[in-house]
C-alpha cells in the first residue's frame, strides 16, 4: 500500500461467523484498499482472528435486527475517501483491481456501481446465474448513511442530499458465491426476512423498495399472489426511473406466469418491452412463455430479437445466457420441435460458440445428426465449427466417448483416426473386443466397456452375443444389489461411516445407470431400423431425438 496513487478506499463489512469465506474475500482486496473495518455482530468462530490477520479494524456490536445500523457504525469510523462495501462471501475479480483503483481517482463521481456475478456454486469456475449492478463504492461523507433494517440501501441517501450526484456504471467484477445456496436458504431464514420487512413496512408503508424486497421474499417462498401484490404496490409508489424498475416488471411477468396467467404474463411482457426496449431478459422470458405454450413461430421471432440484442446493458439486472447461449439453445429446441434439423444445428452451434454451455448444445447437435442419417458428417462439422475446442485433447476424447455411448460408432472411429489420439485407442479396442471374442464373459470387461460394447455388437449383427452378455450382467447386478441390501441392513446396527463409507450404494447406482444407458442404446439401434416410408417414421424419429443423452462424469 506504499506509493498508492489513488485517494484511499475503506472496505466496510458486517460479519457473523464467516470463517469459511472471509479470508478469500480479504485476500482479493488486499492491494486495493487502504483500510478495513469489520463490524462483527457476534461471531463464535475464528472470524475475528482472520480479520485481525488482514489488519482489520474490528468493531463488536450486538445484533439489533437492523442491517442499516450495523453498516452505519462501520462507515462512520472510516477514514478513506471512498467506502467499498462487500459481503464475506464476495470476492473482487483479480482482473478488476486496476479498474477499481482507477474509479477511485475519479472524484467527480459520488459512487460506482459494481457488477455482482452470482455464481451457482462455490468455485469461481461455476456458472454465473445472474449479474446484478449494485452501488457498492461511494464517497465517504457523514450524510451518506444506509437506510432500511433489511436490504439496506445507500443510493437514496446520496441522491436525497445530492440530487445531481453523478453515479457511474463500472465493469468491476465482484464474484458472489453460494448464490444457489442462497436461493434455497431454509424457509425460516426467508421467514425472518419477511418479519423484518414487515417491521420496515409498518414504519414506512409507502417505501417502494421495501415492497420490492418483500415481493422477492414471497417469490422465494413460492407465494406468487402475495408477491404480485407487493410488486404492484412498489410500481405504484416508485418514481419513473427507479433503478430496480425493470426488475419489478421482470418479476411481475414471472409471478403471472407462475400463477398460470399466461395472457396477462404476455401482456406484461409487451408493456415491459415498450418501457425497456433494450432489456434482453424480457424478450427471452416472453419467448420462453410462448414456447411453453406451443406458439413456436412467435416464440422464435421474439427469441431472435433477444439474440440480436445480446446480453442486457450493464445497468440491468440480468441472467447469464439470456441473449446468448440460453436464447440460442431455446431457438434450437424450437427448430427441433418444428422438425427443422439444419436450423436446429445452426442455433445449437451458435449456442455452443458462446462457450458457457458447450457440452449441452454440442451434444444436441451430434444427436440430431445421428437421427437424420448424417452421422458420417459429424467429424467435418466439428472440424469446421469448433476447430478450437477440438484441439483440446480432453474435449476431443470426451466427444469420441460420447459419440460411442450414443451409438455413433462410425463417427467416433473416424474422429479417432483423424485426430490420432492415444488415449482412445484403448476405448476403441474396448468396444470392438466383444465382436472378436468367441464366448464373452462379463467378468472380462469393465462396466464402462460393456456399456459401449453391447450396443456395438447389437448394431453390427452380433445380437446373440450382445444379449448373452447383457443377461449375464443383469444377473450379476441383481446379485450385487442383494448383497448391498444386506450390507445396508447390517449397517443399521453398526453405524460406522469411516469403516463403511457409502461405496457399495454408489457403485451400484452407477451400475444401474450404465445398465439403463445400455438398454437405451439398444432401443435406439432398434428404432433406427424404421423405414422412412412408414407413417410413423417421423414419430419414431422424435422418440430417438428425445431419448436421454449420454452423460459423461
Amino acid at each position, binding site marked *: 500500500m506504499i506509493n498508492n496513487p489513488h485517494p484511499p478506499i475503506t472496505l466496510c463489512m458486517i460479519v457473523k461467523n464467516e470463517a469459511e469465506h472471509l479470508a478469500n474475500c480479504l485476500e482479493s482486496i488486499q492491494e486495493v484498499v487502504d483500510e478495513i473495518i469489520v463490524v462483527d455482530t457476534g461471531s463464535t468462530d475464528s472470524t475475528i482472528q482472520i480479520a485481525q490477520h488482514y489488519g482489520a479494524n474490528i468493531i463488536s456490536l450486538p445484533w439489533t435486527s437492523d442491517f442499516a445500523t450495523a453498516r452505519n457504525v462501520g462507515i462512520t469510523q472510516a477514514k478513506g475517501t471512498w467506502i467499498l462495501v462487500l459481503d464475506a462471501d464476495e470476492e473482487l475479480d483479480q482482473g478488476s483491481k486496476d479498474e477499481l483503483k482507477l474509479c477511485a481517482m475519479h472524484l467527480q463521481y459520488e459512487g460506482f456501481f459494481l457488477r455482482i456475478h452470482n455464481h451457482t456454486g462455490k468455485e469461481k469456475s461455476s456458472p454465473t446465474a445472474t449479474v446484478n449492478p449494485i452501488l457498492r463504492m461511494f464517497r465517504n461523507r457523514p450524510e451518506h448513511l444506509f437506510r432500511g433494517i433489511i436490504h439496506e440501501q445507500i443510493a437514496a441517501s446520496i441522491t436525497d442530499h445530492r440530487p445531481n450526484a453523478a453515479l457511474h456504471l463500472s465493469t468491476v467484477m465482484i464474484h458472489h458465491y453460494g448464490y444457489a445456496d442462497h436461493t434455497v436458504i431454509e424457509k425460516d431464514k426467508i421467514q425472518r426476512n419477511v418479519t423484518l420487512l414487515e417491521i420496515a413496512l409498518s414504519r414506512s408503508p409507502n417505501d417502494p423498495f421495501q415492497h420490492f424486497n418483500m415481493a422477492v421474499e414471497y417469490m422465494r417462498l413460492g407465494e406468487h399472489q402475495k408477491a404480485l401484490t407487493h410488486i404492484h404496490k412498489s410500481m405504484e409508489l416508485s418514481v419513473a426511473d427507479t433503478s430496480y424498475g425493470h426488475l419489478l416488471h421482470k418479476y411481475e411477468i414471472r409471478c403471472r406466469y407462475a400463477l398460470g396467467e399466461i395472457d396477462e404474463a404476455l401482456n406484461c411482457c409487451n408493456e415491459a418491452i415498450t418501457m425497456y426496449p433494450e432489456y434482453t431478459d424480457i424478450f427471452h422470458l416472453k419467448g420462453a412463455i410462448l414456447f411453453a405454450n406451443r406458439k413456436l*413461430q412467435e416464440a422464435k421471432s421474439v427469441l431472435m430479437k433477444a439474440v440480436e440484442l445480446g446480453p442486457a446493458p450493464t445497468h440491468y439486472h440480468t441472467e447469464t445466457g439470456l441473449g446468448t447461449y440460453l436464447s440460442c439453445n431455446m431457438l434450437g429446441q424450437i427448430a427441433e420441435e418444428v422438425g*427443422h434439423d439444419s436450423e436446429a444445428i445452426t442455433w445449437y452451434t451458435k449456442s455452443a460458440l458462446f462457450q458457457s454451455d458447450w457440452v449441452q448444445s454440442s451434444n444436441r447437435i451430434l444427436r440430431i445428426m445421428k437421427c437424420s442419417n448424417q452421422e458420417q458428417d459429424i467429424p467435418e462439422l466439428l472440424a469446421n465449427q469448433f476447430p478450437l475446442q477440438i484441439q483440446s485433447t480432453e474435449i476431443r476424447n470426451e466427444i469420441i466417448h460420447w459419440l460411442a455411448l450414443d451409438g455413433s460408432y462410425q463417427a467416433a472411429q473416424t474422429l479417432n483416426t483423424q485426430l490420432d489420439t492415444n488415449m482412445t485407442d484403448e476405448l476403441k479396442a474396448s468396444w470392438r473386443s466383444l465382436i472378436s471374442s468367441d464366448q464373452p464373459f462379463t467378468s472380462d470387461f469393465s462396466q464402462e466397456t460393456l456399456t459401449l460394447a453391447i450396443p456395438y455388437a447389437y448394431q453390427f449383427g452380433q445380437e446373440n452375443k450382445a444379449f448373452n452378455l447383457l443377461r449375464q450382467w443383469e444377473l450379476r447386478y441383481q446379485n450385487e444389489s442383494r448383497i448391498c441390501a444386506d450390507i445396508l441392513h447390517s449397517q443399521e446396527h453398526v453405524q460406522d461411516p469411516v469403516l463403511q463409507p457409502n461405496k457399495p450404494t*454408489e457403485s451400484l447406482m452407477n451400475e444401474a445407470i450404465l445398465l439403463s444407458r445400455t438398454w437405451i442404446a439398444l432401443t435406439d439401434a*432398434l428404432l433406427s431400423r*424404421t423405414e422412412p416410408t412408414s407413417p410413423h417414421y417421423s414419430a419414431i424419429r422424435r*422418440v430417438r431425438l428425445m431419448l*436421454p443423452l449420454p452423460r459423461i462424469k
Partner: protein
Amino acid sequence: MNEHSIGVHIITKDEAELLPQCLESVQHADEIIVIDTGSKDSSILIARSYGAHVISMDWENNFSKPRNEALRHANTEWILILDADERLLTPLHILKEQLSSIESQIQAVTVTVDNLVSRQPENRVTHQALRLFRSDRDYEFRGIIHEQIEPSIIDKHGLSAITNSDTQIIHLGYLPQYLHNKNKVARNHALLQQSLMETPDDPFLLYNMGVTHCQAGQLEQAQLCLEHSLMLVPHNQSYRANLIRDLCKIYLELNLTKPLDILLIHELNRYSDYPDLHFLLAQSLERQGLLERAYDAYQNATSCTIGILHQRYITELGVAHFLPYCHMGMIAQQLGRIEDAARLFHLSLQFNPLYTPSLKGITSSFDALDVPNKDIHALLQQLVNPQTTEDHILIIEALKEIHAHESIASYSQQSYVSNPRILFDVCISLITISHLEEASVLFNQQMPHLSYEDLIVACQMWAICQWQQDPKELQDNFYVNMPLDMCKRYEFVDQILQIPSDTTKHHYPPDILELVITLVRQSVLLHQPEIAQRLIEHFPEGKLTYASTLYVHGDTMAAAEILLSLLQQDLLDDEASIYLGEILIDKGHYAQGAAWFEQLLQAHPRNEKIITAVSICYLHLAESYITEALGLADNHHSSHLHEDLSSIRSAILLLNRTGWHTTINLKRTTTEVRHD
C-alpha cells in the same frame, strides 16, 4: 340486346354423359352457345335439343380459342361460363334478379364452385371463380389451359370492377367415376407439357402440371412440379395459397411430415385465415403423436372465418368447423379429457349432424361419463333427427360403439329390418342379450329377401342362435332358403356336434373347417362362448381363432390361457404370437415381453409393430434401472436421473401413440393404453 339477359357458354368434346344435366340447369337462359371441338358422340345433338347455338371448330390445343369464339357470337348483356361437367345450382331467375340490382360499374362477378370429390356429400372442395361477366368487345380469354378472362377485365376497369356473389355451381368432374372415364387428365398433361416447353419456368403452368400429375396418381412428380412452382411464384399470386395446400396434401399422402411442418409453420404467418392449411398441419402433427400441438392447430382452423374469402382459397367443406372439432374431440378423448371431448363432438355435430365419426365420438364420450344408454340413444335421435333408413343406420353405428344392445334391439320392426345392415345389427344385439327366439323369428322372416352374400352371414348367426336355443339338431326351416352345397356343410357340422367329442384326431375337409372357423369367430362376436367351445371340442382347429377373437374382444385373460396352451403345442400363428406378447407387456412383464418379441423379430426383422413393441420393453427396462439408481442416489445425481426418467417416459408415451398395440374392442376404449 335484352337488359340483364344471360347467355351461357360451354365448350364440348364428347360430353354426352354429363352435358344433359348441365343444359338442364340453364335451359331458361336467353342464349346457349356451345362450341364443339370435334365430338364423336351425341354431344352436338344433345346441345341442339336444348336449343343451343352450336358452333363447330377444330381443336387447336388451346382452350382460349373456342372460349373467345363463343364471345364473338354472344348476344346477351351477361355471359356465364360453364363446363359440361358442371351444373348451375342457383336458379337462373334468381340469378337474373340479382344481376338486375347490380351496380353499373361492376363488370364481373365471382361464383362459388363446389367440387364433389366422392360419394360422401361432406367430401367436397369449394373455391371462388370468375364465371359471370358483362359482354364487352375488349374482354378476352388468355392462356391455352386454365384460360382466364379476369386479366383483361382488370386491365380495363381495375380490381374494383369485380365483386363476389353467392351464386353456386356444382362440379362433378372430380368424382372418381368421371375423372377416369375421360382422357382429360392425359389431354391436360399434353397441353401443359407443350406450354412448358416454351416457358419452362412459368409457375402457373407448373402448378397446373402438378395438379394434373396428382389427378393421374403420380404423386412424386406432382410434388416436384408444385415445389418448383412454389419457388417461382410471386407471393401476391392468388393461387399461391392453393398451391401450398395441394403440395401439403401430397406431402401428407407421402408421409413427408417434416417438409410439411416446416413449410406450413412459415406460410401460416401469411395465410393465417386459411383453415385448410391449419387443418393439414394439424393432421401432420396428429400423425406424429404430437397431440397437444395438433389440438392447437385444429383450434386455429376453427377460428378462421369462412364465407369471407377475400383471397380465392380452395377450401374443403367442414374444414373450419365440423372436421377440426371432431378431431379435437378425438384428441381430448385420447388425453382422457372426456367432458371436453363430449363438448367438442357436440360442437362438430352442430355444423354437420350426420358426421359419423362425431356421432360415434359423442356416443363413446357420454358412455365414458356414465350416461345411461337410453339417454344417449335419445340424444342421438335428437341430434340426427332421422328421416331415412340411412339416418337410422348412422344412429345404430354409433350405438354399436358402446355395445348398447338393448337400444339397438329396439329397431326390430319390419320397416327397419328390411334393410339387411339393420337386420344384422339388430340380430347381433338380440342374440347377445339372449332374445334368441326374436332373432330366430326375424331370420325366418327375412331369409327369402336376402342377397347371397347376406344370406351367408345370416345363416352363420342363425345357426349359432338355434344351437344356443336348443343344443339338438338345426331345425328344418333353417335350410329352406339355402343353396344345396351350403346345406350340406351345415348338416355336416351339425351332425358332428351331435356326437360326443373324443380325442382321436380327425381330418375334415377344408371347406368344413373354413365354415367352423367362421362360426367360432361369430360365436364370440355374438357372446355365445358355449357354442364356440362346443365347436372347438369337436374341431380343435378352431382354437386359435377362438383365442384371437376373444383377445380382440377384450377377454384377454381367457385368451391368454388358450394361447399359452397352443404355444406348448407350437400352434401359434404370428398374429396370435403378437397378442401373447402384448399381454406380457400389458401385465408389465417387460423382460419376458422383450425376449418374446425378440424371437418374433428374428423372423420379421423389419416389422414395425414388433420393433416398436421391443423398443417399449427396452425402454421400460431402462426406466426400471433408473428408478433403482434413484433409490440409491444423493441429491447431486437425482436431478439428472429425474430428467432422464421423464425423457424415457415421454418416449414410451409417444411410441404408444403410434398405435402399435392391437385395438381391444372393450366396452370402453376411451383412454390411451398406459403401461405404468
